[in-house]
């Protein structure tokens, strides 16, 4: 992608020498960008590039998956007719090894020809082959599946549908965000399910109730990984099996029953259900960002489009017209629809992303009007990160286009940025063509220049549409051209039609919930609102969420594509733009140090270790330092050219380690693409784009995560019964006890002094639940010791439970069982621990341990002497 940068200095005639036809070269269309660059391009529906999989382990492709489905469905009929195509030696070997792997899982139940066919179709990917095989309908295991699964999920759907049915009218009819503070003003068509996609893929999941786990995995790029995550989660086993080929098997076996019970799988099932529902009865959602050089007319174009479509009423328009005239900026009248702040209006430039929505024939389109000025590129990045498609606006005026396009202009940088951010469909609006009296030559000249550039930037010719238009006069925006000058030569679609024709990308609905906070503001109700785009998964009213990297769990509400979430239980001061809201069961990794594969753009200063940069990831903007240059990679093959290079020059690819001063949330690119993409900027220019390949977990936070995961599982009831005061006191007491224990340990060596700490413990109490006035001190003592012993036993048995007392653990366990939660390994350890403690306690009651030199007078601290005097007497009586 960065190779195009050389273009400026390159001699075109040399470059194209070997080709017969410069622009009409058909091979170019298929390989319009170099494969290495493709790795950095988030190409949602391109064919799987062979080189791509070389760096990223399980990079499957969405479209191919769909083909799988149909193919598998049809395979029943033509199973026998499958003839193995001639293969190279290498492929033959791969085929064989794959077949072995697969057979070790499925056994001999399927004929080899079927296996071969599936493996070939899945490109020798074992995990996917297994998926395909196990999902094919006529498997035997389907028979003994209890139908209850289906029922539960159906009832779930019903309840979900009810939920939706309740909410949707409120939104659609009301359209008043104040009424329901969580509804985004910009996207009034919010539905409960987060993200939509083509319904066909969903149907697939539910047609086959056999493999419950596969239902969860949508045809996303890394199905295997997601499945793995889920299995890990459901069984709560701490180690994740790294072998991809094992996953389908284990999940097929272990998840059969558990999957319906665990909240998370329920959730993702529900997500799919609702999403399907939404897809079936609503228009598709599309996010479009407008980009281009400053003063290209982006805001005016958008404003005029909104006006034409009736989203701005006459009165407001008139007001804007009057006011802009007063300020002497009448040409900005349409831009004012989106540029609302005083500063933006008086300066006549957009500073922050403006948002609004239009409806086309088949879609709801969210328009994101990004600023074009160089200094506001950070804002533009946050806008573009939310977009699915882009509208590149260029100024056709003579001289203007050239300044925007040549090195200083933003046209290039913006196009590259959106490409690196995963946008692959582009519409180029050649604006202000009326200033050159709709000259066809000028249009062709502009298109010609852009075409070659965009091709090198990684856009396919078929995905780029060029539309001549004028934002100010409104020519060719919503209706075919009326001006005879334009109509004489232009017969293509108008801008609105082009927008309508954009394809909606697949949405990773079943992945764990992630939302990158883009804005924090005060809502109308209680609490405050954050807004951002739901990257993956879904969220509903009342869901518990985790704010990262802060690791706090507020409760929250509601969903949509671009949503506002009202959050309770957390202070607004503690939130910052760029934080991630995530699913408490599957929190996003928090890190300070990550390894990334970066493509370096055309930079003037080489990158060395210690280079300070500004890291952009979704809406996060954070200063960072490149601390290590791990390797310089070959641009197309990804091979290591040089280990630990001294510096990285322009237009190279490299593996680097980036460190931030504050912990941030990043996902590995192969897990969640949206959160795995980085932009590095320095001194006002974008120097590199990258993908996260490794992230080192931030330790303290991770430990907190564990704790929080436990907390999240704990039901509210347990908490209430135990009472926070009680637990707080218990902990305080414990730490005090430890201190004392240390002190005592230093003071003496015999058992008596030890007793002296036990006694006051019982006396001042509030700790020992069995303590009472009526019971003898001996009894209390035994309880105390029993608890201590139990604690010791627990500490030995499971190091994770140190924080909790056995009693709390036991109560929690009891509660979770009573409330129908599935006990897990950890819980069993707790149970065993508690039992051991109980036995110890009973033993101690029956055979109290009496110190040998009990006859000797007891020596207490003089400080506390009076306190124990009473107890002391009784103690002696016992002994």
């Amino acid at each position, binding site marked *: 992608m960065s190779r195009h940068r050389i273009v400026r200095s390159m001699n075109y005639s040399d470059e194209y020498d070997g080709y017969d036809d410069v622009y009409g070269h058909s091979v170019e269309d298929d390989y319009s960008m170099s494969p290495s660059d493709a790795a950095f391009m988030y190409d949602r529906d391109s064919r799987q590039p062979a080189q791509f999989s070389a760096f990223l382990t399980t990079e499957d492709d969405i479209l191919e998956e769909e083909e799988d489905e149909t193919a598998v469905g049809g395979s029943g009929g033509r199973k026998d007719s499958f003839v193995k195509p001639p293969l190279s030696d290498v492929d033959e070997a791969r085929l064989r090894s794959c077949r072995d792997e697969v057979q070790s899982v499925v056994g001999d139940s399927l004929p080899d020809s079927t296996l071969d066919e599936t493996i070939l179709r899945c490109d020798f990917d074992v995990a996917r082959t297994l998926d395909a095989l196990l999902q094919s309908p006529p498997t035997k295991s389907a028979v003994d599946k209890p139908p209850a699964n289906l029922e539960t999920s159906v009832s779930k759907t019903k309840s979900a549908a009810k939920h939706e049915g309740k909410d949707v009218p409120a939104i659609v009819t009301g359209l008043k965000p104040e009424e329901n503070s969580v509804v985004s*003003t*910009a996207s009034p068509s919010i539905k409960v399910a987060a993200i939509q996609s083509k319904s066909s893929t969903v149907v697939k999941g539910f047609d086959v109730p056999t493999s419950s786990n596969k239902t969860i995995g949508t045809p996303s790029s890394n199905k295997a990984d997601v499945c793995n995550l889920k299995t890990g989660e459901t069984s709560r086993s701490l180690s994740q099996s790294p072998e991809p080929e094992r996953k389908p098997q284990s999940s097929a076996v272990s998840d059969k029953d558990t999957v319906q019970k665990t909240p998370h799988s329920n959730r993702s099932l529900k997500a799919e259900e609702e999403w399907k529902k939404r897809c079936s009865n609503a228009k598709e959602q599309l996010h479009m960002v407008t980009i281009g050089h400053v003063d290209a007319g982006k805001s005016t174009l958008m404003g005029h489009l909104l006006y034409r479509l009736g989203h701005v009423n006459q009165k407001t328009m008139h007001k804007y017209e009057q006011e802009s005239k007063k300020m002497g900026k009448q040409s900005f009248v349409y831009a004012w629809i989106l540029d*609302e*702040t*005083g*500063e*933006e209006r008086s*300066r006549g430039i957009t*500073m*922050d992303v*403006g*948002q*609004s929505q239009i409806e086309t024939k088949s879609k709801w389109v969210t328009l994101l009007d990004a600023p074009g*000025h160089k*200094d*506001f590129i*950070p804002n533009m990045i946050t806008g573009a990160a939310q977009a699915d498609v882009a509208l590149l606006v260029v100024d056709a005026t003579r001289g203007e286009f050239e300044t925007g396009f040549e090195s200083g202009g933003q046209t290039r940088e913006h196009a590259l940025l959106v490409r690196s951010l995963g946008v692959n469909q582009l519409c180029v609006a050649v604006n202000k063509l009326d200033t050159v009296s709709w000259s066809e030559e000028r249009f062709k000249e502009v298109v010609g220049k852009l075409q070659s550039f965009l091709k090198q930037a990684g856009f396919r010719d078929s995905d780029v549409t060029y539309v001549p238009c004028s934002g100010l006069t409104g020519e060719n925006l919503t209706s075919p051209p009326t001006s005879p000058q334009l109509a004489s030569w232009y017969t293509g679609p108008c801008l609105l039609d082009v927008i309508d024709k954009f394809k909606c990308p697949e949405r990773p609905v079943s992945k764990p919930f992630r939302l990158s906070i*883009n*804005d*924090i*503001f*005060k809502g109308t109700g209680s609490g405050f609102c954050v807004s951002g785009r739901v990257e993956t998964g879904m969220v509903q009213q009342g869901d518990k969420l985790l704010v990262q990297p802060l690791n706090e769990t507020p409760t929250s509400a509601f969903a949509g594509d671009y949503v506002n979430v009202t959050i309770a239980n957390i202070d*607004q001061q503690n*939130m*910052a*733009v760029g934080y991630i809201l995530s699913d408490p069961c599957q929190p996003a990794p928090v890190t300070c*140090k990550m*390894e990334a594969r970066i493509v370096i753009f055309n930079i*003037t*200063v*080489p990158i*060395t*270790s*210690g*280079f*300070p940069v*500004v890291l952009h990831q979704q809406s996060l*903007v954070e*200063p960072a*330092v490149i*601390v*290590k240059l*791990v*390797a310089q990679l070959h641009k197309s093959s990804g091979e290591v050219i*040089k*280990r*630990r290079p*001294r*510096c990285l*020059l*322009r237009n190279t690819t490299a593996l680097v*380690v980036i460190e931030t001063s504050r912990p941030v949330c990043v996902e590995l690119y192969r897990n969640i693409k949206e959160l795995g993409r980085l932009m590095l*900027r*320095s*001194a*006002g*220019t974008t120097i590199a784009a990258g993908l996260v390949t*490794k992230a*080192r977990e931030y*330790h303290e936070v991770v430990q907190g995560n564990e704790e929080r995961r436990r907390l999240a599982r704990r039901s509210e009831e347990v908490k209430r019964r135990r009472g926070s005061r009680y637990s707080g006191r218990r902990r305080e007491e414990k730490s005090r006890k430890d201190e004392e224990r240390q002190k005592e340990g230093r003071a003496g060596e015999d058992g008596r002094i030890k007793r002296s700490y036990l006694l006051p413990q019982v006396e001042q109490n509030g700790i020992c639940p069995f303590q009472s006035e009526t019971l003898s001190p001996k009894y209390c003592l035994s309880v105390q010791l029993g608890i201590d012993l139990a604690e010791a036993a627990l500490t030995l048995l499971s190091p994770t439970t140190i924080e909790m007392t056995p009693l709390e653990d036991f109560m929690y366990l009891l509660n979770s069982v009573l409330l129908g939660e599935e006990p897990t390994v950890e819980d069993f350890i707790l149970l065993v621990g508690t039992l051991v403690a109980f036995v110890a306690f009973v033993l101690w009651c029956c055979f109290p341990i009496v110190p040998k030199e009990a006859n000797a007078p007891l020596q207490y601290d003089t400080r506390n002497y009076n306190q124990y005097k009473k107890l002391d007497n009784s103690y002696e009586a016992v002994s």
Partner: protein
Amino acid sequence: MKLVHKNIEKDGGGSVVLIPEESEDMWHAYNLISEGDNVRASTIRKVQTESATGSSTSNRVRTVLKIAVENIDFDTQACVLRLKGRNVEENQYVKMGAYHTLDLEQNRKFTLFKPEWDSVAIERVEMACDPTQVNADVAAVIMQEGLAHICLITASMTLVRMKIDQAIPRKRKGNVKQHEKGLQRFFESVMQGLLRHVNFDVVKCVLIASPGFIRDEFFQYMLAEAVKADSKVLLENKSKFLLVHSSSGFKHSLKEVLMDQSVIAKMSETKAMGEVRALETFYTTLQTEPAKAFYGLKHVQEANRAQAIETLLISDVLFRCNDVNERKLYVALVDSVRESGGDVKIFSSMHVSGEQLGQLTGVAAILRFPLPDLEDEDDLSDDENGMDTDEKNS
């Protein structure tokens, strides 16, 4: 800093008596004193005395102590230097070998005994006591929407006095009020920070840097507020403000600010600017002629052996290391570069540029002539794949 007395023997050992006069001198002292040196200074010690009857009284006594420094502690924010060590001199109140922590105080002399005064240390004393060095204190506000750093830039230090990080609601359809309110609140806190942390009597110039128009908006807001509140301080010092462009509100953008033409024109040459420029030169050389710019001790030493170093950039962190031999190594490098006619720039690690150099192994060199052989040597491979080793450690 004032040099009161200097007594350095031929063998390099000896003592120096200095009086620190301002907070920056503490920084120099911090760079001068290393572990193992002896320092004599006046201090306050709590002394317990036991009377004949057994009752004990404690009172604070001001006394002069000489300690062998074991631990050096520098607080960058308050500019306080704390030296911990054992008493090595007979004293009325304090036993030999008793621990004491000296707080070096401004305007009180202290005596520094070093077993060996090397060239870098002597140079540091000279630099600290140089009366011609203009003390151009500059305050800088680096800001972007919702983030501001208020810094003080002195000759050898950049101190972040305050960091303001506020979430400003974005503009949204039909609700611009919140955005504007948030911005006003942000400006208010920046202005308060500026008034609290910047002493306009001392500061010669206040830089306000930001991307976009935030700086202009802020400046307008500040003046309007000053007029409203009739704040003389701001109105009188209006001419000291300088609005500059920077690419972001993060601290490292300060580098860009100091390279700005208007800043260079307004301020006389300061050390901070010189350092930024030197580092910039290094990077451009690295881009244009990679064989003429090197970093890392091994490469630089190689280059030095060939007497090829024209400019040596070295961070003062390296001279503060605890290991005497290591320090000697770097001092030798500096001496040898000087001997062969090279220029040595000792970067202050408190500046942004120094921080960056510190990340870049702390030592870099621009050569007179290219050494392409050096480039091929792969001497950095001792610690393989950074992330992996880190992961293993954790």
